[in-house]
């Protein structure tokens, strides 16, 4: 099942690349550099999904004390950090030709950097505590408190004056995106979600094996 999910993710990524580089047109204002969005946007949506799972796993662990929920939170946290890192790096590379700078202390960028640091801290905390029960309990608290940052990142472009553009996919208004660009984004989002599901399954299996050995 996990292996099939992996191959499905690879297929999705290949179709996503074809959609982003072949099907989707060259964006009229930004040119080819806009194609980084087929990586940047699915990466951040996947990171959101991962951190929501950390939140749910943490709440469920504190409520039930079942180690499976802690394994889910730990696995999702690690993968969420990976995808947040990809979001920051790809956004920075996009920003240089578009904004003229690799980095600026804009509300969206800063809150995303804080989100990254919070979950790196979450993973560090997990690595520092040896007792499994105490580790799961403390990590669950950080996993719940850290999730406060998710809406701050998402709504930062509305709450503060920001250089980063407002949400065009998860925004309240109908998306102004060209249908071909929207479809390429959707295909890549599905591919990244499949890849996330594959990574999550493998990472949870590792956590289960670690507990047994």
């Amino acid at each position, binding site marked *: 099942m996990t292996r099939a999910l992996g191959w499905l993710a690879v297929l999705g990524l290949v179709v996503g690349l074809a959609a982003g580089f072949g099907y989707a047109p060259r964006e009229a204002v930004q040119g*080819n*550099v806009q194609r980084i969005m087929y990586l940047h946007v699915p990466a951040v949506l996947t990171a959101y999904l991962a951190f929501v799972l950390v939140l749910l796993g943490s709440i469920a662990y504190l409520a039930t004390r079942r180690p499976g929920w802690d394994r889910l939170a730990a696995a999702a946290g690690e993968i969420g950090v990976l995808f947040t890192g990809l979001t920051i790096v790809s956004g920075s590379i996009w920003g240089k030709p578009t904004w003229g700078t690799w980095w600026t202390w804009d509300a969206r960028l800063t809150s995303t950097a804080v989100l990254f640091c919070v979950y790196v801290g979450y993973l560090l905390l997990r690595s520092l505590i040896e007792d499994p029960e105490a580790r799961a309990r403390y990590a669950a608290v950080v996993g719940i408190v850290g999730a406060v940052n998710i809406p701050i990142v998402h709504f930062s472009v509305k709450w503060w004056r920001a250089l980063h553009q407002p949400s065009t996919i998860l925004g309240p208004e109908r998306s102004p995106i060209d249908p071909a660009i929207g479809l390429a984004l959707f295909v890549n989002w599905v591919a990244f979600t499949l890849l996330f599901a594959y990574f999550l399954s*493998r990472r949870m299996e590792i956590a289960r094996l670690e507990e047994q050995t």
Partner: protein
Amino acid sequence: MPSNWGYVFAAYGIAAVALVFYWRHLARRTRALATRRAVKPRAA
């Protein structure tokens, strides 16, 4: 408007390296744990 392909390939290249590295890290870790688990009962 400049083509900026260099930035596009850099972004996708870094992402590909990171994702493949993590994929291989998970595969190696799973194999190592599975081997350790298989060896453990015989050693005991």
